[in-house]
């Protein structure tokens, strides 16, 4: 096995010639031209939260924007028709304060099996960051978001985005993340373009994505 490693690295050296010291490589990298714009919208001039709402809705996600104190009521209304929802640890307790008693709340403790998750209708989470330019939500699966399977297996995902979490563009959003964590970028409900290159919503991921912007 290590034979393959050494041989591939030797072949690369042969192809690229002299190998620069790591510091030289890093210096050359730092000097690479980056003439593009790191943001296509100026957060101080444009309402990037409104832009995020508009672009997320383009993917046929359901998008609502409510004042911060109305989040519990909006959460309750969004999951009202579901028999059960799973909620991750660390979800701000107030968000669930308005829930009807007939909605069964399930905790991921002890961790639910995939089959158990499949029998749960929905999931309510927060997120780490959102991107206005692309209408994207990013989960880092930290507190209030749950491990990755929680937001994948149930067919309905309600995600609460606080206005301050919306970044103008991809660069700003990525810079706010910790690369050591697992991440899921979500832009609308599950979809496919595999039949005649036409986008159709609803394949393996949650077919219903509901985005609630608070603030």
């Amino acid at each position, binding site marked *: 096995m290590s034979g393959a490693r050494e041989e591939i690295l030797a072949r690369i050296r042969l192809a690229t010639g002299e190998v620069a010291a790591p510091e030289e490589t890093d210096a050359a990298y730092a000097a690479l031209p980056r003439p593009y714009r790191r943001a296509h919208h100026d957060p101080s001039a444009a309402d990037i939260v409104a832009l995020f709402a508009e672009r997320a809705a383009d993917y046929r996600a359901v998008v609502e924007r409510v004042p911060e104190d109305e989040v519990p009521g909006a959460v309750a209304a969004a999951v009202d028709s579901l028999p059960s929802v799973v909620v991750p640890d660390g979800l701000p307790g107030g968000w669930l304060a308005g829930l009807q008693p007939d909605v069964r709340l399930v905790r991921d403790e002890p961790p639910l099996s995939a089959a158990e998750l499949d029998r749960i209708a929905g999931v309510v989470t927060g997120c780490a960051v959102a991107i206005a330019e692309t209408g994207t939500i990013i989960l880092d*699966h930290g507190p209030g978001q749950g491990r990755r399977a929680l937001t994948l297996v149930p067919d309905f995902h309600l995600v609460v985005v606080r206005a301050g979490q919306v970044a103008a563009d991809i660069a700003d959003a990525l810079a706010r993340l910790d690369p050591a964590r697992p991440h899921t970028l979500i*832009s609308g409900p599950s979809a496919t373009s595999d039949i005649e290159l036409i986008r159709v919503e609803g394949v393996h991921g949650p077919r219903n994505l509901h985005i609630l912007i608070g603030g």
Partner: protein
Amino acid sequence: MPTYLGMPAFPDAAKRAVADSQLRRNLTHATTAIRTKRAKAVAELDDWEQLRQAAKAIKDHTLANLGTYLIRLEENVTRAGGHVHWARDAAEANAIVANLVRQAGADKAVKVKSMATQETGLNEALEAQGTTVIETDLAELIVQLGDDRPSHILVPAIHRNRAEIGELFRRTMDDAPPGLTDDPPQLAAAARAHLRHEFLTARVGISGANFAVADTGSLVVVESEGNGRMCLTLPDTLISVVGIEKVLPSWRDLEVFLALLPRSSTAERMNPYTTIWSGVTPGDGPQDFHLVLLDNGRTDTLADRTGRQALRCIRCSACLNVCPVYERAGGHAYGSPYPGPIGAILSPQLRGVDSPIDASLPFASSLCGACYEVCPVAINIPEVLVEQRARVVESQKHYPERIVFSASGYVLRSPRRLAAAQRVASLGRLVAGRSGRIRRLPPPLSAWTDTRDAPVPPPESFRAWWARNRGAGR
């Protein structure tokens, strides 16, 4: 990379494809729609060209320092709890994966579409050891159910329309819902139901990766359906087979590539789902992660100063969608998992030009340059094609056109031979159609008319006319 068994040279395969009017209708329909949408998605960013130049610069820098970045990637994946394997060729990569699947004690694996494993023929290798491989991407499922071959990088079943897919599902899917129509949402729902149980019980997942970030050890998979998330999240063991050219120096580089890739491939601002992970996260996702770094001809390509740029490719498939040759010939004619303009330069470099199909691929282009124009990493495909044509011609002493040109040199050196040849050529009028063009000449001259029409020679050459009207005899 497999050269599909008995694959004829591109012109023969293309001739058959062009005669298939249903295939041409399907391709024209799909590529026309995506071309328009892509142009709109790209126009939305006024610094597209700058993003493209940055991407090119990052990739070129990475390729020039490839060893450094691969070692860094290996260190960081290992530090995050993953295992890194190196594979010189397809057979070695397949053997590593087969062994890992055996170690996991699994007799089947769920798989998210990956070009690298298409290239190594992994499915066939695993099936040979009795492992069932379940392709979970809708288009790959269509290809697998139809015992077919992929014909497009992004949409492997682009050659099939909804009616053909509906018919296939009703015929081959034992759990197809009764009354399943050709409506795409219904077809997608059928695929969801069909694969659900497999996802929930899978113990091994197999993937590729769009990017591998050296300084954080992160792998990135860009997808739409959620089958990728399923394969990357639910199994206990995850094996990712990734070409060595997929490495990016730094986390920050994703800001460039995540802007370029979705707009170039599906014409979206962002694809529905992207999963990014670094090694193993306790309590979340696979607890046993293996990265297989694949060479398989890439270091040979790296050694070629002009051809190296093909390694910048991020597999977006924009070049396929704009190519007039691809639109008419379809993906199968290219005889490789990589069809279209990028395939025409990549396959001969990865596999060499020994087989008839690989020797013909550099000629499967009109050199119109549309592929270069749309390429998000600015690969100058026509430049590489021209250089590869020269290489094929040099390697094949008896290339038919070479014979034609050496024969014409012989004729043109002597006035007597030229006059004789012109008298013979006038007879060519006998084989011309009403169009005034000669579509097919007998061998060996057929080598010329196989790929082009020949003009009809005049009834009398100018030299003969001059001799008759103004010649010394008058």
